[in-house]
């Protein structure tokens, strides 16, 4: 008898393989159709179609998709290390860049939340 941890691992690998295959297929389709859309996005659309057609159920991919999304940070850490080549940029423009990001982030959060809140309240008043 196989231990449950082993079965879980095999299951994880199988689910990751499905997601990888859809990603590759998306890339092939994008190249073939000459669409300027990343292969991953076409893979996402394909997976939505498979869910809609009842071919796959989200529960079948929950483990693999969950691991990929939960550990996403690990996959973009190498890009963060590009900072190694941008030491002078950071010294020259670092504070200004940080200011742009801080002000813009605050603005985005305020306008997004107020827009959604306003529409929700408007609908509540008019639906009731």
């Amino acid at each position, binding site marked *: 008898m196989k231990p449950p941890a082993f079965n879980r691992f095999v299951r994880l690998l199988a689910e990751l393989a499905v997601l990888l295959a859809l990603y590759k297929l998306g890339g092939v389709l994008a190249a073939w159709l000459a669409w300027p859309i990343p292969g991953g996005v076409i893979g996402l659309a394909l997976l*939505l179609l498979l869910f809609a057609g009842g071919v796959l159920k989200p529960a079948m991919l929950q483990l693999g998709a969950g691991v990929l999304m939960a550990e996403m940070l690990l996959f973009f850490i190498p890009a963060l290390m590009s900072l*190694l080549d941008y030491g002078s*940029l950071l010294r020259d423009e670092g504070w200004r860049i940080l200011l*742009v990001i801080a*002000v813009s982030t605050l603005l*985005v959060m305020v306008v997004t*939340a107020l827009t*959604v809140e306003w529409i929700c309240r408007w609908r509540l008043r008019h639906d009731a």
Partner: protein
Amino acid sequence: MTLEPMPLFWLALTLLAYLGSRWLYRRSGRYLFSPLILVPAVLLAIAVPLHTAYAEYARNTHWLMSVLGPVTVAFAVPIWQQRALLARHWPALSLGMLVGSAASIGSSWGLAHVLALDSAVSLSLVPRSITTPFAMPLARDLGGVPELTAVFVMFTGVLGAMFGGVLLKYLPLRTPLARGALFGVGAHGAGVSRAHEVGGEEGSVAGLVMVLTGLLNLFAAPLLTMLL
């Protein structure tokens, strides 16, 4: 300095730092220990004194970034699972995403110009509000530097997760939809984790909105290339 005798040095160190930081963060719950902050800090603290160039660091670690492609595919799962939420609230959510994205792109680009930032930096700032798997290809489309964009996305997440908690105290938000959208549009993945701490519905909304905002921005790329 090169570490030729240990070709997998940086890969091993990255994985170790990641696992260690994740463990520490889960145990302590202190935001400073979150992998988003601690891992780059530890790696830079080792790489900078060694005068490691990015190319050398990336030689054995760049393949990790290629996993971001399948992550994009995995985003179909939250979209499908939250489709009822989307069907019910699409007017509010889509308008919120549109207004938020316009505010993000407009203010990042505008402020970068007012502060006279380098043009490659300004372009790399444009996708900073969306999640990395979408932000990096968008930066490439716009003529920015995808790696720099990843750095700006990280700072957006760190700052946004902090600001969001404070904003919730001062903004008159009664609906979980608005509270979730605030985090999902404003602070992508870091915001989604924070939204889950606020509430279950806030977390679901933030996760859904994060993915859809990324798609929306990516599809706006041809328009942005024309405007910027």
